[in-house]
């Protein structure tokens, strides 16, 4: 009787997971396995027949300067966004964690861009960065015409414009995560640090930073996975140009599949992309976790 009861419990427990699991396997893992399958073919997405080409697609991925360029641009975009972004987010958090008049309003305003679609954000910035836009007109007005650039069509500057917009959008979001981390530091620790004469930079580096490592772990995870997937910004603002300098991996996959009809090839870029993101995030989680301290 008891055994029957326990079996029934287990059965129910499995049944509870089943609906979520079915949907998940069908629309997450089954597609991933099909990505692996298509990546070994030269399928164009429409023909009934296709050939197996072995690892040819992967050899192409690693010798295709356009795809390699997309990976380079994406990684560059992510690294600069995260490094600069973290400094700004942490800086704002360190200010807002103090007693500040209107702290709530500042928090709301700074967080706001994070709830807007990146597509809308991108369109909002066109008015500023287009050639006849607000930035160039302002520069003209104050006599700094020499600083005017073709912001959205410059081989070196344009990727940085996208980075700036990305940092702008996520500054408040990361800031909130750091504020939560800072508020979790017990007051005794801050008091003890003050008694020992630790202030400013030394206190930040030796006491505050190690203690907010959990917040850094989560924030890094979100920023890395988010910024490596960047799509809307270049899609709307540059179309990947000029000269593919803002072409990103997601755009590259989208274009290869749906503009050039190379489903097989697009799948192999996708698979490399997945392995790339998985490796980076696993390394990041291990490293920042190791830096976390107990208190």
């Amino acid at each position: 009787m008891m055994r029957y009861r326990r079996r029934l419990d287990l059965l129910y427990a499995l049944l509870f997971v089943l609906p979520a699991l079915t949907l998940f396997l069908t629309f997450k893992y089954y597609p991933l396995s099909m990505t692996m399958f298509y990546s070994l073919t030269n399928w164009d997405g429409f023909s009934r027949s296709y050939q197996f080409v072995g690892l040819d697609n992967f050899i192409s991925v690693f010798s295709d300067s356009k795809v390699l360029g997309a990976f380079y641009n994406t990684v560059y975009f992510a690294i600069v966004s995260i490094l600069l972004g973290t400094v700004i987010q942490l800086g704002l958090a360190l200010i807002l964690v103090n007693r500040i008049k209107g702290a709530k309003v500042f928090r709301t305003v700074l967080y706001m861009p994070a709830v807007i679609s990146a597509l809308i954000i991108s369109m909002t910035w066109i008015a500023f960065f287009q050639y006849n836009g607000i930035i160039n007109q302002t520069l003209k007005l104050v006599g700094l015409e020499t600083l005017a650039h073709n912001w959205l069509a410059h081989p070196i500057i344009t990727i940085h414009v996208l980075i700036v917009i990305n940092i702008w959008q996520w500054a408040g979001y990361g800031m909130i995560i750091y504020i939560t981390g800072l508020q979790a530091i017990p007051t005794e620790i801050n008091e003890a640090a003050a008694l020992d004469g630790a202030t400013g930079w030394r206190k930040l580096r030796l006491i505050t930073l190690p203690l907010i490592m959990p917040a850094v772990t989560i924030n890094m995870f979100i920023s890395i996975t988010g910024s490596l997937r960047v799509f809307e910004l270049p899609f709307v603002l540059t179309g990947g140009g000029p000269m593919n300098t803002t072409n990103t991996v997601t755009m590259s996959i989208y274009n290869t599949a749906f503009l050039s009809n190379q489903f097989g090839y697009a799948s192999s870029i996708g698979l490399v992309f997945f392995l790339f993101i998985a490796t980076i995030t696993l390394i990041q989680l291990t490293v920042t976790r190791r830096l976390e301290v107990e208190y």
Partner: protein
Amino acid sequence: MASANGRWLRMFNYTILYAAAVIILIPVLNIILSSFKTNQEINRVFTLPSSLQFDNYARVFDNSYIWLNIGNSIFITGISIVVAIYLTSMASYSLARRKEWIFQALYLVFISASMIPLAANLVPLYVLMNKLGLVDTRTSVIIISIAGAIPMGIMLYTGFIKGVSRSLDESASIDGCGRVRIFALIILPLLKPVTVTYMVISSISIWNDFLMPLLFIRTASKKTITLAVYSFMSEYVNDWGAVYALLTIAFLIPVAFFIYNQKHFYGGMTDGSVKM
């Protein structure tokens, strides 16, 4: 000395904060102001609109399916999140309570999928939806949104249920309650705070999604508001006044939602993070 230092520091802090707030607000103010300008005035960026005219908005409502588009976004987001809540809360109950290895493994299966970028599955998802006859339907976007929301739901609910005392289930079980009734009558009501968090945070990411609607929806009347804004811009390149009006509407909806639900946004992120 110390107090003088403190005063400078305070001034520095406020300067930074005001500067940051202005930098955030300028682009927002620009679209709102521009939405009231005529197309001639828009090019004169430093001037205010000559009069508060709603012509741009009128053209948006005349030339687009904006009500339908907003409706589609509400529909897609609403259905997705309700189904996701149902699926993940139930699954998490097992994942959090059972000690067998299979449930630990399943937990990992759910969580590690957050590392699969949607872009990696772009081709097979399209092929699959095509086979199911779901291309150019809202259903395709709903299904993918649910699948996308599952890892976070599992994470939030499993973490939360682990904190709910087991004695509750056990006493109910002694009283002769079946598993389903224990879940529905005892566990589910306790999950309300975490459900609100999950709802609020996932709604925003489903609402804001662009890539999936772009891939799957063609017909103008089925588009989400985000996709509609993009299509509208490509179609009305010379009518920036109308584009700004539509942008303003598309901007203000999630902002209003955010301001109304603020505390869930702030708290929710850490709820999710501590369990990672």
